[in-house]
């Protein structure tokens, strides 16, 4: 059994290249579709709990159902999580968001921050 048979390796490269090109294309498309947002929307466990305007600086402590917390800072029109009770701190590592469709996710606390546009452009996600 030869692990690196040429034909298979060629298929590997085609697979990887196709996936990367497709992903990069979608990424580019979504980046271009983004526009400046107006609100930071807090969703805990699938339920929208709060909405803060991005043009007003604020520091909010978000309590989650499991007793944990995330500190949401709104500054210079951007929303960012700067502190959290979760062990992995993936949400803290995520960059500040300000464009529509961007999100900061904290899986352990089931908390998601998303950016919304102006009121009239709102979609109503009924779940």
């Amino acid at each position, binding site marked *: *059994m030869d*692990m*690196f*048979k040429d034909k*298979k*390796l060629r*298929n*590997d490269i085609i*697979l*990887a290249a196709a*996936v*990367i090109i497709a*992903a*990069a294309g*979608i*990424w580019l498309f*979504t980046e271009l579709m983004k526009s400046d947002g107006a609100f930071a929307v807090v*969703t805990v*466990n*699938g*339920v929208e709990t709060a909405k803060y305007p991005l043009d007003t600086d604020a520091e909010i402590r978000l309590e989650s159902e499991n007793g944990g917390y995330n500190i949401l800072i709104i500054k210079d029109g951007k929303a960012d999580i700067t502190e959290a009770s979760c*062990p*992995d*701190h*993936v*949400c803290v*590592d*995520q960059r500040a968001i300000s464009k529509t*469709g*961007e*999100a900061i*996710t904290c*899986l*352990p606390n*089931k908390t*998601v921050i*998303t950016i919304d546009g102006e009121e009239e452009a709102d979609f109503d*996600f009924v*779940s």
Partner: protein
Amino acid sequence: MKTKKVAMLGLTIALAMIMSYIEALVPLSFAVPGIKMGLANIVIIFVLYKFSMKDAVLVSAIRVILVSLLFSNVMAMWYSLAGAVLSLSVMCILKKTDKFSVIGVSVAGGIMHNVGQIIMAVILLGTEQIALYLPVLIITGTVTGVIIGIVSGLVINRFKNIRL
């Protein structure tokens, strides 16, 4: 199941758990939030190639359950499970076609692990925007998949003439 096989699979499960533990100790999420190397996949791929599909499913399932109970929580188990199920299913299919080397199989596994976790996150958190992060995770998943695939290929080659 023969005693020797029980011992061998126990050994690989232990190894997969150690890989998961090392990964938890060295987080990469400061670079790209949410990414992982997927070290445990080296063990899963090894079992897939040196033992059988059934054994790989067994080792993967036991690893996910034990690691979640030991190092994280039940919530995390759902994400791991979604990633593991999708990843292993696609790896099994690709291996069966015999058109890809270990690297291709590993790349598909790495990508599908991310896809599974994002699907689970969208279901559990009810926020569709999370899916927009998928392209980033697919690209990083491909890169880590190539690395894991090369390492797995080297390990499998070393065991070429050893019967387990």
